[in-house]
């Protein structure tokens, strides 16, 4: 695409700028707990958007139900700690693997067909998971929800203590670190052979399979990695808010917002989705909610519609140089 912009930034520089901003943001906000809590959820969302984008932006498989993985991760982690006595950090890993299992359950039947089948199957899957969580009351407490989920344990590293129970700042930086780790993994996947295969599948499935790309396997890998990252963030969320119920963990918010964030930030880039998610959360909190208190999410729909029709590369996508 020919650019009419005065300058373009490479993907790497954009990522560095983003993470510098993320790291300095608490200082700018002078560690105000209210703002920090907003940006912690923004970081969670940013990470889920990165994961969503690996599947949709890189591999071309749109998902309308990432809330399924988020909720699975959140519940698995909470239950592993509270019912099986796992260490919360170990439980996070376990929860992420549970997310992978969820991905396989829906991916294996749905990826047999091309086109919109996967996108809609996973939407149904998210609904079913919510329903199961509501009804398996002996395990999940149903609609009552799970209370008093322990936070991540104290870490003492050299002279520093990281307390996840009291300090918002610590949680903020852990979320930032998780987002960074997810970004790096996605960056390396994208620039590996598997990433090339995903890109080929996105371009044209028939040609891809013609030149020997295992289409089904590639899609499954993209889905499981994406599910892994999403469930990991879900598990972080569970230990951060200490309370889960089916409505909060499987909220459609976790399905919709990664899409809005990714498209807004630029679906063709790797770092764009997280920037998009951060900006959107800010806009939502400080602008949209002032206009319409109950229906503020209608702006997300509007934004999605406008971006996809008039700026399909995303608003930031134009600034990022294609290699």
């Amino acid at each position, binding site marked *: 695409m020919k650019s009419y912009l005065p300058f373009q930034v490479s993907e790497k520089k954009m990522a560095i700028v983003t993470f510098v901003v993320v790291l300095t943001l608490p200082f700018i906000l002078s560690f105000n707990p209210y703002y920090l809590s907003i940006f912690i959820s923004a970081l969670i969302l940013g990470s889920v958007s990165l994961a969503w984008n690996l599947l949709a932006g890189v591999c071309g498989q749109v998902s309308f139900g990432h809330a399924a993985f988020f909720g699975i991760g959140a519940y698995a982690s909470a239950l592993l700690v509270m019912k099986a006595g796992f260490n919360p950090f170990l439980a996070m890993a376990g929860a992420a693997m549970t997310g992978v299992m969820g991905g396989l359950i829906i991916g294996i039947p749905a990826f047999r067909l091309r086109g919109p089948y996967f996108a809609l199957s996973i939407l149904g899957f998210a609904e079913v998971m919510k*329903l199961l969580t509501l009804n398996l009351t002996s395990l999940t407490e149903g609609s009552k929800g799970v209370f008093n989920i322990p936070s991540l344990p104290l870490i003492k590293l050299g002279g520093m203590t990281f307390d996840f129970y009291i300090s918002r700042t610590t949680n903020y930086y852990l979320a930032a670190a998780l987002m960074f780790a997810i970004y790096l993994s996605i960056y390396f996947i994208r620039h590996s052979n598997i990433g090339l295969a995903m890109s080929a599948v996105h371009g044209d499935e028939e040609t891809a399979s013609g030149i020997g790309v295992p289409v089904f396997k590639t899609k499954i890998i993209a889905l499981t990695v994406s599910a892994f990252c999403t469930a990991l963030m879900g598990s972080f969320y569970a230990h951060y808010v200490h309370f889960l119920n089916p409505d909060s963990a499987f909220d459609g918010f976790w399905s919709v917002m990664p899409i809005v964030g990714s*498209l807004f930030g630029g679906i063709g880039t790797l770092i764009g989705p997280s920037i998009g998610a951060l900006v959107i959360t800010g806009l939502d909190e400080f602008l949209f909610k002032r206009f319409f208190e*109950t229906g503020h999410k*209608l702006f997300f*729909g*509007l934004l999605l519609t406008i971006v*996809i029709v008039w700026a399909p590369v995303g608003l930031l996508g134009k600034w990022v140089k294609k290699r």
Partner: protein
Amino acid sequence: MISTASIIQSLLSGMLEGMNYALYCLGLAFVFGIMRIINMAHGEFLVLSGYIAYWLLVKWGFNPLLSLPIAAVIAAGASFLSYRVFLQRIRTTAELNTLILTFGIGIFLSNLYLQLWSADIRNIGVDWMEKPLMLAGIYISFGEIITFTISFIGVAALHSFLRHTKMGKAIRITAIDRDAATLAGINVERVDLLAFSIGGLLAGLGGPLLGMLSFVSPGTGLHITVKAFILTVLAGVGSIPGLIAAGMILGIGEAMTVTFVSSSYRELFGFALFLIILLVRPSGLFGKRI
């Protein structure tokens, strides 16, 4: 608990409900079959007409059956506008774009309903509809029979419209081969616009019926879209009579689940069936192999 009467009861109410399912998903199946577009806003158009009928009833005391055509036309108008303003511009780009676009329209609409009509569930109940008819221990409400009839007429009307009118034939030809249709002098752009509006009209027929039988709420739309997609896959893309059969299978299956297992697992039946169909026979029960 399990008696012959309860089995017959669930069979019958499942069949009645299944016919309505066929109508609820008709618009989505039609648009998907003709245009290869999954309209993620389908359920929201359906809910829109439900709200219109609710409003007409509450404000002016309209009979829901009378407001049915009005509400359907308004839903068709909303569908027309969505196509004209947004969809037409990206029709030729990647298939996934239309999916995300209609999803965006759906989010916009459902949150608009939330803002306008709050999250409360709205029922368009009228007394004479809830009158029970008892036949040898089997219970049917009068409303169920009426909605069954309307649904049947809706499905049959679409079927014969596509088979026997010139416009219907133009739509079918365009679905089979766009280039050939253009060569034959068909304005394919117009056909697309028409087909998408018909999809909205069909969704609009379902809304008031849904409101009469159960309720509409801002969250209902997405739920209906998912159910409609499940049914479309079950029936096989492009098979309209198949939709009735698939609707009835789903309806009876759900009613049986409620009778013999638990009402909370009702939705699970459809999804489990859907996954099995995807694995065993992806072309659907009545569709051609793809």
